Every structure is written in C-alpha cells, then in structure tokens.
C-alpha cells in the first residue's frame, strides 16, 4: 500500500515563486498553505501582503489577497477584520515592514488585540530592496547600509519583536520559531496552526515570529545561511512560546 505522506498543499498555486533559492519565505508559504488546508479555511482567509519580498504572496496562496502600503499591514488587516468579523485575516510581514516603518501599526494593532494573525518573517535584513540593515540585523552584521557591520553604539541593538509585544496586555498568543531545520519547521507549522486556531475561535490577537533565511542578501549559499541562522540568530532571538492564554492544541 502506498500513500502520499507529504504532498503539494491544495491552498497554494503551482506557479514558481519569485523567491531566491533557499529563501525562507517559500517554506513559510508552504506551511501556511498546509495549515489552511488542515483547518479548511482557505475559502475564508483574507491575506494582507506586505511590501517586501513577499509582496506577491497573494499570487501564490489561493486566498483573497490585499496589498498594504509598506508597514501598514496591521492597520489594513484591522480594517478588513472590522468588516468581516467571521473571516480569518492574516497579516504577513517582514522585519523592515513590521519593526521599522510599521512600528506604530504593529504596536497598536497588538495593543488593541485585533483578532488577526500576524506572521512575522524575521530574516534580519531588508530582502526586497537588496540587503539594507533591518531593525533585526544583528550586532556587527554587514549590510548594504552598515558596511562596517551594525554598530550598536550608533544605531542600537536589534529589536526583539516578541519581547516588545509581550509587554502589552491583549495579545493572546505569541511565539517565536524558525525554519532553518526540519524540527523547527515542524514546530513553526504547529505555531501557525495554533495562531490561526486562536483567530478562528475568536480568542484574540496571535503573533508568530519566524526566523528565516535570506541567502541572497546575507551573501551566503543556502546551506551556509541555515547555519548562520542557527548559530547567530537563535542565540539572540530565543525560540519559545512567549504567551499562550489558552489556545487549544490541535493534532
């Protein structure tokens, strides 16, 4: 007897993505599609795509999609959700989007406890614009705009999103995970599913940060990128559940 135990998710198109080889966005897209399949909610999901490498996410995922201006995805998602209270609204964002230009929208949507799900792809870089320093770029990380490495004396330390949001009262579920290895990917899938479940059941705001590779702008091949994520990012960005007010675990 044979069985396909890992198959192409239904909620994703079969067009090739524009992502670079080894890009973490691809993995997250796949996980999101799998979760949409398993929860059977693709037909009621509204996806807000950010300005960032994932701007075309709506071209890949088979859900209704809306583009937000750079950084404004949580506010746009708020508008969607306030109209369609029964739909699942997902705001997919990069680190430049969520933690630089979008800081105010991020904090305030979280503080209001909007019943939306934020998927935060932290690749410690501005991917789409060619590798500038992000709020999450690590100390001494060389980027297009920190050619001598991030000087924390001058520009401060990388910001930790989960920790910041965790100071607010209303968020319901906050977790940081990663897509650099198989175990972490499986955990990430669970986290995304939990976050979506949180919203589906009307419990509240859910936030999943996902450490993700950008081989292109890190200037590494994908295999090196995976190592760098593990050895450099995770020590600064610990993987853990920051808050879970009680989302039912799901098989």
């Amino acid at each position, binding site marked *: 007897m044979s069985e396909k135990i890992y198959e192409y998710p239904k909620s994703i198109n079969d067009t090739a993505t524009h992502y670079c080889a080894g890009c973490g966005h691809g993995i997250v897209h796949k996980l999101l599609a799998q979760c949409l399949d398993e929860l059977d909610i693709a037909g009621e999901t509204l996806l807000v795509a950010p300005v960032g490498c994932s701007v075309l996410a709506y071209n890949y995922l088979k859900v*209704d*999609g809306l*583009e937000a*201006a750079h950084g404004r995805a949580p*506010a746009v998602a708020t*508008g969607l959700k306030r*109209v*369609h209270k029964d*739909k699942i609204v997902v705001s997919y964002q990069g680190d430049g989007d969520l933690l630089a230009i979008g800081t105010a929208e991020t904090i305030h949507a979280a503080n209001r406890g909007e019943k939306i799900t934020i998927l935060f792809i932290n690749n410690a870089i501005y991917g789409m614009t060619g590798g500038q320093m992000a709020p999450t770029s690590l100390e001494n990380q060389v980027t297009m705009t920190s050619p001598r490495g991030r000087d924390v004396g001058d520009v401060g330390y990388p910001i930790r999103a989960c920790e910041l949001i965790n100071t607010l009262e209303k968020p319901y579920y906050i977790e940081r995970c990663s897509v650099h290895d198989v175990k972490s990917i499986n955990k990430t899938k669970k986290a995304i599913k939990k976050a979506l479940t949180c919203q589906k059941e009307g419990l509240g705001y859910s936030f999943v940060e996902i450490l993700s590779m950008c081989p292109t702008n890190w200037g590494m091949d994908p295999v090196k990128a995976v190592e760098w994520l593990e050895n450099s990012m995770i020590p600064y960005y610990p993987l853990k559940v920051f808050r879970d007010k009680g989302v039912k675990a799901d098989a």
Partner: protein
Amino acid sequence: MDKRILMKGNEAIGEAAILAGCRHYFAYPITPQNEIPAYMSKRLPEVGGTFLQAESEIAAVSMVMGASAAGARAMTSSSSPGIALKQEGISYLSGAQLPCVIVNMMRGGPGLGNIAGAQGDYYQATRGGGNGDYRTIVLAPGNVQELADYTIKAFELADKYRVVVLILGDGYLGQMSEPLVLPEAVKSLPPKPWALTGAKDRAPHTIASLRLYPDNYLEKHNIELEKIYTEIKKKEVISESFMTDDADFVLAAYGTSSRVCKKAVRILRKNGIKAGLFRLITLWPFPSEELEVLGKRVKKILTVEMSMGQMVDDVRMSAGKFTEVDFYGRAGGMIPEAEKIVERVKSYV
C-alpha cells in the same frame, strides 16, 4: 412640518455618511474637524457600525483601505497636515481602485500653520501629493446642507468609479451650524463583486496597486485608470452659476470664499455693475468647458480664494485663452471681505 434642524457642518457630514450606508469610520483627531470623530464615536455604535480612533492618520487611511477592500463603505476625515500624511495611502487606494471618502476640513498652512479655515490645499487635493498618475474626485460643498448632500454623493461616486472622493471643506464650514434638511437614507448599496469576502466557491480575488511583470503591465493599468478619469471628466462636473447670464465680470470661487463672493455680487449689482458668480462644486473634474464658455463671453474673471492663488491656475488654463483672469486671495485662515472684492471689480469698470 419644517424638517430643518440646526446642525454643525462636521456633524452633518457624519450623519450623512451614516445615511449613505457608511458603517466604518477610522480617524485621528485634528482641529477643526474633531466633531466628526466625536459624532461618529457616539452614533456609529448605535447603528451597528465601527468607530475606531486610529493611532495616526496613516493608520486611519490604511484601515479605510482594509474596510473598503472588504466591500464596506468606509470613510476617514482629517485636516490639512493630516491629509498630507495620507497621500501615500490615497495613491495606493487609487492604484488598487478602492472606493472611499476622505474629508479634508482645511486649515491654514503650510506646516502646522493655524487652525482657522483656509483653502490652501487645492493643489494637494486636485493634483495629489501621492505618487504616480492618479486622480481623486474633489467635491467642494458651500454650506452645511451641501456638506450633507455631497457626502452622500461622494459615496455614490466613489463606488461608481472605484475612486477616492475627497470632500474639501474648511474649518469654517466644519465648525459652523446652519439649517439643514437631512437627506434620505440610502436604501440599497451597490454590489461589489470584486470585494474580498473569502475565496470559498470562487477564484481568489487580489487587490493591489503593484504591477510588476511584464514591463508594460503598469502602463496598461495607467491607461485603464485614465479611461475612468476621462469618463468622470465627461459626466461628473458640477458647478453653479449665479447671475452670470448677463455678467461682464464673473467671480470664480468655491466653498467659504464663494459665499462671500455671492454677497459681493449682490452689492455690485446694487451698484449697477453686472457681476456674477461661477461657483465650482467639483474641483476635479474641473469645469473647464463651462469656464471656457464663460471666458468667451465676459470681460474678466476674478478668482477668489482663501489661499495665495492655486485654483486660479486651472481657471487660467481653461478661460485664460479667452479673457483676462485676475486673482484675489486671503491666506492663512483669513476670509476675503466682500467689500474688497467689490472694490477690485469696480476697478475693472
């Protein structure tokens, strides 16, 4: 029974929006339009709607974008500097063809300026401070009744063409109370088959302003938009003429300054001078043809604005070929005085 009530301009906009079926309003406080959010925060929950004070003007226009994409009639309001902050959002809304209504109760500028009523945002409203080729319809009501009536009209136009409609008032119009007959509530809202409602049983919808591949994808979109704009220019111009039929001299104005102009026309007529008023109600589409026709007939047009001279550009562009176009303005929140206008026109005789 007299249905007239005395209502503040800002509140009239709020109530009219509700009558137009708007149930989603997002805004950030700024004088002189604070009565709109205050009113909406009271009234919207009563009719099952959503009032949300956004963390900024940018967040507010983004929330409007979300609500509009969801298919709702959505509105935000602000005043001059706050509208400057919404320019990127307006450009996105226009590019994504999302209908909505944005109210600007103009105040004195530039910068923080002051909080008196002014008309210094004509350029901003009609040319856009957003990026790229796009247009917004700009309605310029002249009294509280019109603030209400044109708010309803604004939602209709927005949905009809899937464009942003600006209501361009000023601090005086927003703050003043006048008699008003509330318009009828809109009975049924137009269907929005393009809206995001979940892709269950249909192909997914995408709403975006990005047009990346192929190279000429965006240009095609620009041409599509231009077609819509051309149609609007053809069909939606609104203006009002007062005693222009036999006029030698015509004042061109909108909003608060047009009220003073009307008074000036009356005084001039009493003085035996054939003056008239051409009042613009749509600033975009601009009543170019009407002004051309007028330009061919009259001796002079005096554009009166509460600015250093902005709309006068458009008046010149349309009527300037045929007649002289003069300008009189007060800026920084001052209202032109009828007497000064009269004086200026008398000097032409």
